[in-house]
């Protein structure tokens, strides 16, 4: 790990042609403007309508709002559950058999570009190269780009000291605004020589035959398939509770959810690394949005919007699960912020997005990108409200002079049904809310249990049962990301790697 002493005090920002080119071609679908004037107007109209509705009938307003949110929340959870179940039943991932791999002749293999963006990771540069070296692919067909940042002198120096093989090239990305990974990737894309391209993170350990599998899978697939998402998983699941939960979540996402989306033909929000691309269509799409902090998710949606497809390939890249809470929260907050950015980008013109993604694709996008983030942001609000409500019950049972709201107030004296009083209506809402929350938590636990079974991690079952705690942590990070969207939208929350004490190579 580089220390602050390795860093220059202040390197002035430079101009960057890749950013200029991307914006020139793709400004409309870039997150460079977090929210457009038109969107602000739409939001103001929405707020005004909400305020008028609230003034007109505050109870109806709350009931409508809460039931609407609950409906959306439940739809997002159920969609995930259905997708997971479908993927378990159908196993839709692209499979490449050993025979197909053996049939690939080395001289016919295309040049493969590997992008390795690194920032302040001088300590794991050597390990990274060892991982690349383990790849089963002809060295002369490899085009490895180490993407380093100009202001990260420590890593630049560490890489220079290494005896880099000929297929490795160091690209120093100029210190330009915004300082994000997608911008570095665009520099790599500009210099790429391969027919295919893949991104790995510094700590990744891909399966050795992954590149060959990708080549075989691309050959089997139609031309519309421009991206293959490989499954990501962690090699240090048992390090602490956080890594256990994180492993279950990743297993759910990459083993079940993304294959389910693949099966349904829905847009796939890509995972951060191990995305294999055909380089031509990738260049046609303009590469990654340098202003989007989840450029992978954005690119996944853009691929679908342009009529291309993403499929899931049955191969695994092993990564290091974050074991430190602060580090994990930073990473997770960036994800939520990026998902919200992506949602805002594609909500600029809902009709255009609807036309590009199709009705099902659009609904799926709403539920997986915006909906997922919304559920995470809503969670704490729902929990606090429910806790307050249950607090009333506890207070009532302890005789503290408070009374929980009943669902129906029946006037036993005159048989008048008072179910329309404010408190009873709110009770209906809160009971509904609690049912939804508990169901969602049950679904969450169920999916995590399935994930444990899939990976054969039965000893993680207690963690699966306690996964609502993890959900609370995710919500905390989600709020951080949500608030950051207003003040530091392009800030890249750097995730530190190399914190694990587990040897990745041995584990995998």
């Amino acid at each position, binding site marked *: 790990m580089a220390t602050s002493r390795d860093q220059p005090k202040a390197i002035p920002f430079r101009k960057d042609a890749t950013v200029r080119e991307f914006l020139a071609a793709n400004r409309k679908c870039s997150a*460079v403007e977090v929210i457009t004037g038109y969107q602000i107007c739409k939001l103001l109209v929405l707020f005004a309508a909400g305020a008028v509705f609230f003034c007109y009938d505050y109870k109806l307003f709350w009931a409508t709002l809460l039931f609407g949110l609950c409906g959306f929340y439940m739809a997002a959870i159920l969609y995930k559950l259905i997708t997971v179940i479908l993927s378990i039943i159908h196993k839709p991932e692209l499979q490449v058999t050993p025979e197909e791999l053996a049939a690939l002749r080395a001289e016919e293999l295309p040049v493969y570009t590997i992008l390795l963006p690194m920032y302040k990771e001088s300590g794991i540069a050597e390990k990274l190269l060892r991982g690349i070296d383990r790849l089963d692919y002809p060295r002369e067909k490899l085009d490895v780009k180490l993407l380093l940042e100009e202001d990260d002198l420590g890593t630049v120096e560490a890489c220079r000291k290494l005896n880099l093989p000929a297929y490795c090239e160091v690209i120093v990305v100029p210190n330009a605004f915004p300082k994000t990974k997608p911008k570095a990737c665009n520099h790599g894309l500009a210099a790429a020589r391969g027919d295919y391209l893949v991104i790995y993170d510094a700590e990744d350990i891909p399966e050795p035959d992954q590149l060959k599998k990708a080549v075989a899978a691309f050959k089997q697939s139609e031309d519309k398939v421009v991206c293959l998402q490989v499954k990501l998983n962690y090699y240090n699941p048992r390090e602490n509770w956080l890594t256990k939960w994180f492993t279950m979540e990743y297993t759910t996402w990459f083993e079940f959810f993304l294959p389910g989306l693949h099966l349904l033909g829905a847009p796939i929000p890509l995972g951060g690394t191990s995305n294999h691309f055909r380089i031509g269509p990738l260049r046609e799409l303009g590469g990654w949005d340098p202003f989007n902090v989840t450029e992978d998710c954005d690119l996944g949606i853009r691929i679908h919007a342009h009529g291309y497809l993403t499929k899931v390939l049955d191969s695994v890249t092993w990564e290091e699960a974050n074991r430190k809470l602060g580090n994990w929260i930073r990473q997770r907050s960036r994800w939520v912020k990026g998902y919200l950015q992506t949602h805002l980008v594609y909500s600029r013109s809902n009709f255009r997005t609807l036309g590009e993604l199709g009705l099902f694709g659009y609904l799926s996008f709403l539920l997986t990108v915006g909906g997922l983030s919304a559920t995470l942001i809503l969670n704490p609000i729902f929990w606090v409200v429910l806790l307050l409500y249950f607090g009333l019950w506890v207070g009532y049972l302890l005789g503290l002079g408070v009374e929980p709201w009943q669902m129906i107030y029946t006037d036993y004296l005159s048989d008048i049904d008072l179910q329309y009083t404010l408190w009873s209506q709110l009770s209906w809402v809160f009971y509904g809310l609690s049912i939804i929350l508990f169901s969602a938590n049950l679904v969450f636990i169920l999916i995590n249990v399935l994930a444990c079974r899939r990976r054969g991690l039965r000893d993680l079952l207690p963690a699966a049962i306690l996964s609502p705690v993890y959900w609370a942590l995710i919500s905390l990070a989600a709020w951080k990301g949500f608030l950051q969207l207003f003040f530091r939208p392009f800030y890249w929350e750097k995730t530190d790697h190399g914190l694990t004490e587990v040897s990745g190579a041995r584990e995998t």
Partner: protein
Amino acid sequence: MVVRLGAGLFILIVTMALGAGSSNLVAEELCPTLKIESVPDIVFSDQAVQVRIATGFDREPPLRQLRRITNLTPAEVTAVLTIPGEKDTPLEVVPSQLEIPPYNDTSLPLRFAISQRYLQTEGRIRITLKTSYCEVEATIALRRGQSPGEDLFAQGAHLYTQDGARVMLTVDRYGEASYRRWAVPKAILRSLTLPPDEGVVYLTTYSNNGKKILPAMNHNSSSPPNGKLGILREEFSAAKRKLRIIAPAFNNNAPALGLLAEAGRFLPEGETAIMIDPGIEDILFGTPVALYKNVLHALVSRIEGLYPPGTREIFLIIPAPPAGLSGRGEAYVEAATKVARERHLSVMPAPRNSGRDQAFLYPTNEARRDFTRNLILRTQVSSRRGTFYLTVGVLLVALVAFIIVQVWNRRRLRKLVEFTCSEE
């Protein structure tokens, strides 16, 4: 056949023998009486009304008339609603068998529906019993809950007008939905337009013949403070706040009804808050809970009718059942709470000097003093208005600050982007 003819002949002979020469005597000398036996004191405007009248003859029948029964046809009993300025409206009476026996009074249950249109008005219902030789009538005064007038008085457990007519108060069912319409702006407007005079009207039952004691309490400041009203006066005076106490003559059949009768006799004098303190007398004297609840509904309705809509805040003080009557008192507490909830009243618990288990906590007067100070705080319009302005101010400042930061941030980021994208 022969047996039947024989029996019929026998009855004819006996009847003729009993009534020989006396049928004209009944027509000339006996006249039925009519009095209202029961009528709902308070009805909601969507309810059907059932009235029970008692009838009989005004005197003993002559000898040998013992078994005579006068049958009345439905057309002979009529109910007419008279509304000033309008044509009389005959009400559809649903009669049961109408028989007037010679001796004991007979209750005749009459049911008639008064359409909602008429329940929104004031008038008189005249029930007439007409026979071929006599016509009698009874009257019910139909009054609106919002404006029952100032001529009412409570006697027994009923309300009457000064001319002795039983009163039936019609109270509108509180429209929850209509209350909610624009409730938020109305509440804001109310808090901004409440008059600056922060006086309080305190309407309560007082078992020591309020009519006699109150003038002394209100106007003779030299008299020592006495009980809860004394403490109220003392504390309000110390806080330099205006207080007007209305404690009507005590009615031990239904104390709350006294409040209702009296409610018409005070007019708003600029006070911003009305305190309704039904007290514990109804619990002590066992007022029927349904009546108690309806009286509270009518009372609130009446008070709301005295002021322009929404310009006064009405507080209902929930009674604290005395030790030993907590079981019975619970129903009254429940009723008062429900009225407050249904009508969106602010509530305050009555002063208590003991806990729920009736264990003694602190002296009664201390409890009353705490209650009064709390009441003074709760009715301080200026502080509430201040809180409102403060909240709005803080929200506005936060909003403006947020917008400024956002605008600044957008400009900063835009400049950075422009710089990055500019040609070399």
